[in-house]
């Protein structure tokens, strides 16, 4: 969302290189010490030479509107909760949910042949399965007020057509849902929440890790998944502090996901004095990356940041090694997937990716969820399923607390500042984005090892990572 502001990078980048330079000191007009997004001081924008005139996302976001006065309906047959996620790619369905979604949810995976299914569809279906499980369990517990069943109303999010907006409008005005879970792709999630703001309906996001998603001041949005900001800080610390690399290049998908989600990694690199050697792009669906990789090779890079989907990331890994480039590869959480492992094979190493939670957790609550999911869908859950499950649980809990009023449900949700879900503790910040610490997935001989900051930097991780949490 923010412009690629070369000038300011240049300034900061050069500051880093030439060391501190004297600038006119100006004190911030809001003299507080809280840092948004748990941003370490060294990674904070302009922190080397300028206090900003105003800081945002510090004060708790309020909704002072009218909605709380709207009375609960007299009679309803079901308590509808909306779901918007990428299931299939088809223009005809861009204005609504495809009839065959239930069928597709039943199947284990969706083959992506690029014709009918979105590349995000396999995850979209996991996300849907997670939400369904939560709803089914709530109904097994008796439903709303022990009498009315919860009902998940599903809409397809066709990213090509920015369909999430229309989908939410139908959910809100035709299906009368009370809250919505969605979506995954950053661009479409933004579309979704701006529509939610106008309708005034709570949105629980469980799958979009785009840092800017929450930086829109919309008081109706809650995100329970750790975002790329947290994951990028951990990756950057790992690359520059743990591995001690200095020369890192970037190769990212040219779409919005690649553009936005690498932002924090780029800024952290620049501000810690390791600006990317080069930032190159590829298109989703490309299969040949040698031109870009040869350029990176010629720059003697020690590592390469690859931000995109697993299919392309896997091919890049293979082609990189075919060119004799034994570099560290730093990726987004999306590569922590079977597609990537299948592509790179069992001997792959030196790949690190951020991950929003610890999927190897032995927590009883998580283990119970994994077992229930296995039984229901015959397949293991992963991040999208687990976070959607938590999200649906949070919505159901909020409805249980305050009844059927969208504004009050929103109030109840934002009160859950330290919700304990199957994916761990959710620490919502002032704008209701989960700030619980990210994990690092390191590829070792074809297997992912998940590490916390403490695992990597020892118990004094905070100090080691120069973290200055103000939450």
């Amino acid at each position: 969302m923010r412009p690629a502001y070369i000038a300011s990078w240049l300034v900061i980048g050069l500051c880093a290189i030439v060391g501190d330079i004297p600038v006119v000191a100006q004190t911030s007009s809001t003299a507080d010490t809280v840092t948004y997004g748990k941003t370490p001081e060294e990674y904070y924008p302009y922190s080397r030479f300028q206090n900003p005139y105003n800081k945002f996302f510090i004060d708790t976001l309020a909704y002072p509107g009218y909605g709380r006065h709207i009375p609960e309906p007299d009679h309803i047959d079901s308590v509808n909760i909306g779901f918007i996620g990428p299931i299939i790619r088809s223009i005809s369905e861009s204005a609504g949910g495809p009839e065959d979604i239930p069928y597709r949810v039943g199947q284990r995976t969706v083959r992506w042949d690029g014709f009918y299914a979105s590349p995000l569809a396999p995850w979209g279906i996991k996300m849907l399965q997670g939400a369904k499980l939560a709803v089914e369990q709530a109904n097994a517990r008796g439903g709303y007020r022990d009498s009315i069943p919860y009902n998940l109303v599903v809409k397809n999010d066709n990213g090509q057509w920015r369909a999430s907006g229309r989908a939410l409008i139908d959910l809100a005005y035709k299906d009368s849902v009370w809250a919505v879970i969605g979506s995954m792709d950053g661009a479409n999630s933004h579309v979704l929440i701006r529509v939610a703001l106008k309708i005034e309906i709570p949105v629980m996001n469980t799958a979009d890790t785009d840092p800017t998603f929450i930086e829109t001041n919309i008081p109706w949005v809650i995100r329970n998944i750790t975002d790329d900001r947290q994951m990028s800080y951990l990756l950057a610390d790992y690359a520059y502090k743990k591995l001690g690399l200095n020369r890192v290049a970037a190769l990212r998908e040219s779409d919005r996901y690649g553009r936005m989600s690498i932002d924090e990694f780029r800024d952290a690199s620049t501000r810690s004095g390791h600006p990317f050697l080069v930032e190159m792009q590829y298109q989703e669906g490309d299969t040949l990356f040698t031109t870009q990789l040869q350029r990176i090779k010629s720059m003697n890079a020690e590592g390469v940041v690859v931000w995109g989907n697993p299919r392309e990331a896997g091919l890049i890994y293979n082609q990189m090694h075919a060119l004799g480039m034994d570099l560290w590869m730093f990726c987004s959480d999306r590569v922590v997937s079977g597609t990537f492992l299948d592509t790179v094979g069992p001997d792959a190493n030196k790949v690190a990716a951020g991950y929003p939670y610890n999927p190897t957790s032995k927590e009883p609550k998580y283990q119970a969820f994994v077992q229930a999911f296995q039984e229901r869908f015959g397949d293991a859950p992963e991040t999208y399923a687990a976070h959607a499950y938590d999200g649906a649980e949070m919505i159901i809990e909020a409805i249980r607390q305050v009844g059927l009023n969208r504004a009050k449900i929103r109030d109840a949700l934002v009160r859950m500042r330290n919700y304990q879900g199957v994916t761990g503790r959710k620490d919502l910040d002032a704008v209701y984005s989960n700030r619980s610490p990210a994990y690092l997935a390191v590829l070792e001989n074809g297997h992912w090892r998940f590490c916390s900051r403490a695992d990597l930097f020892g118990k004094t991780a905070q100090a080691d990572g120069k973290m200055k949490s103000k939450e």
Partner: protein
Amino acid sequence: MRVFAMKRSAVLLLIPGIVVLILSIRSFGAKNTERVYVGEKVCRQCHHQSGGRNQFNPWRLSAHAKGWAALAMPEAGKIAELSGVAVEPFKSPICLGCHTTASDVEDWERDETFRLQDGVQCELCHGPGSEYIDPAVMEDPDAARAAGLRMPDEADCMVCHREKGSHVAVLNVKKFDYGEALKEIGHAGTGGPLEIPETKPAEPSEGPRYVGPVACAACHDQSTPRHEYSKWRYSKHAQAYAILGTEQARDIARQEGLRSDPQQTKQCLSCHVTGYGEPAGRFTETYDMAQGVQCESCHGPGSEYMAEAVMRDPVASHQAGLQKPDAANCRGCHTDGIHGHSFDPDSMWAKIDHSRWEDRTYSSVEYKTPFNLAITSDGSRLFAACEASNSLMVVNPKTRQILKEISINDQPHFVALSPDESKVFVSNRGSDNISVIDTRTYRILSTIQVGDEPHEIAMNPEGTRLYVTNAGSYDVSVVDLQAGKEIKRLAASRGTWGVDRSRDGTKLYVTNNLPRYGKFRETSKSEVTVIDTRTSTVEKRYTVVGANLLQGVAASPSDDFTLFTLIRTKNLVPMTRTIQGWIMTNGIGILWPDGRIDQLLLDRWDDYFADPTDIVFSKDGKYAFVSGGGVQQIAVVDIEKMKALLRNAPEKERREILPNHLGVSNEYVVKRIDVGRSPRGMVVSPDNKYLYVADGLDDAISVVDLTQLAQVAIIDLGGPDTLTTARYGERIFHNAAATFGRQFSCHSCHPDGGIDGITYDIEPDGLGFNPVDNRSLRGINDTAPFKWEGTNPTLKRQCGPRLAAFFTRIDPFNADQAEALDRYIVTITMPPNRYRDIGEDLTPTQRRGKQIFERMYDNSGNLIPKNKRCNYCHRPPYHTDRKTHNVGSASWLDTHGTFDTPHLTNIYMSPPYLHDGRASSLEEIWTLYNPNDTHGMTNDLTKAELNDLIEYLKTL
């Protein structure tokens, strides 16, 4: 890209060292490459060599090489006329599409080495060469294919060689035999070593130099009346070099004791190639020996006289070396007995003479076809807009003399006088403008551009504003006459047609010929639009349910109601059903001041009143007259009787019974007056004594005495006496006599040769299955087969017995009638495309759309199967492969799923779309009715990309 491409192949002509450059581009992957046509001269670098590499010769000797030149032949003009092609053949994208190569691409897609004049050359069949010309690529079949090299199959050839009615009619060509044709043009190569000799540009020597025929063609091409270049290209001279590559040539050489390849033998070349033996410095780089015996063999080297300024000055051009050839020149080579031929200068001269060209005017017979009339307040002058003769005729209705005929363009349709009668305004349907003509001098004062296919005209009382109904763009143009230009466009429904002003001058009533877009299989809903002349804004849009083809409109002199013509089409029920008047009933609508709309029929149960076209009131408002275009009659409606009937009818009957009642018209239709063929526009004389009727297909105006209510005279507009077959067909087309009870004519469903915008159930099952959308007749001759099922190979068949069986329910047309109908239909022209002028560059949006139309890879980089690419079925130039395909468009009402691939020429003109008219816009074809990519791969497109595609489709 363009600059790059030029550099690439231009260099290749000299040295092959360009390989690296091309490879570096290909490394981006086929997905991203833009391909450019390089022309046969580049292909020739490798494919005109000894061994198995001489593909050039057979091509140069083939008809393909003359494809472009053929468009200058008189026959080409005739064929164009029969194909509804409105422009000259060598300008028509349709003709050029099959007669030359890369005619539909933009300039940048043609390298500087490419020449349109080379007709059907290598790249039409093998694809643009820029990416595969590199020898290294060509050696690797897979790489070559990936770089765009195509190996054509029968389907590719049949795109152009499938039988075309127009070509059969004029050239009497025999049916195309693929196998035979292949033998004829076969040029399989055996490969062999490739030599590309290094050539160094020579130092220019003194004196005039040879420039080659392409340089001459810069002026002497199709645009000159004599088409010298085409004439030469058609002659043996142009093949003189290539012929040396034939077995026959080698025999002759052997007979003359020459052992070497004639194409490399001095004795042969000296006569078979212009300027052979001259030093290299005598040739400019545009010269090309492979062109054979060229202009300069007879006219001398052209470098000094080729400049236009010099050529236009006989003395200067002579001094600059332009020679006037005579028999002596020819004898230099055509010596008696050479190769066993004797030389007869006169007959030979006649063969190659290009000092004149055959008469190129095709149809000499020109009819008038008056459409609409206007009369001066003193009744002394009657103006008639004549569509066929492109003129406005002025006659004295009393003396019945023609006072003047003013030529205007194009397809004049309606005529109206200014309040002070100093000017007359004529709408020109073909050229989308209004001609403003001085009624004293009859001079055209100005031309004002308005919307598409302007029909009728009305004015505000002050005469400062003109309101024009645009049937093509579905709106109303408001013209400020002081400013002399259109100032705004008002919304209307579809096929906006007629207009009349209320007597108090404050309102305009506008009819719309086509129903609004509605839901699939929904009753037609048409519209009468009301405009406030004080504000020039739309005041009301009234819905007329169950009716379409609203055309004529007239406000009553008493201003208490408005009448308009309509047809009630029973298109939702099988044609086997005859309740409520079978297929069509014809009538009028009455719009009351409170917005209520009544409908009444003009039909009698045993004799219908087909094609109610125009409607006017007698000055006293006692009668309304309706012209019945299909029955050659005027219906006289007694207004008081009509009102009484409605007044006395119970509400339910008035609402539900009367609109379909075939038994009551005799209560208010007091007379049907016989007039001439295809009566259209009418005016009443200011003294209310006469009604003048434009008898469109008689080139006449009927004079009807309003006291006797009978035709008393005919004003002859001086059309030709002869009746051409096409005109005969036109009369049949517009005459309901061909249908049971005179219910309707061909014209009823195809007004202006176009569409009525609705879906019919004309199938024999009688059960309501297989509904089909009406298709336009404009420019369809060469798009056979016909019908959505694609079962009719010719128009004759389409209009044959089947028509009688399912449509007309009367004796089928006899052979002559069918022939005539066929001849008329093929002359219904396709208007010029309104989204792209011929030769105009594409806009960035259209260009992106074209790339999608021709793409091979989807947005995720997957190769799109051939049958899911747009241009696989919709192949240029008509953008149809003229076959049937199943694109998953069948509905639950269809008994089968395969349908004819429609042509896409001016596709924007004929919504709704798909075989059953389900898609009300081009967008809906893909947004609603292609969920599984069965009608082309489109679901990976973004909305913006789909818009690009549609903007491009509109230019076809």
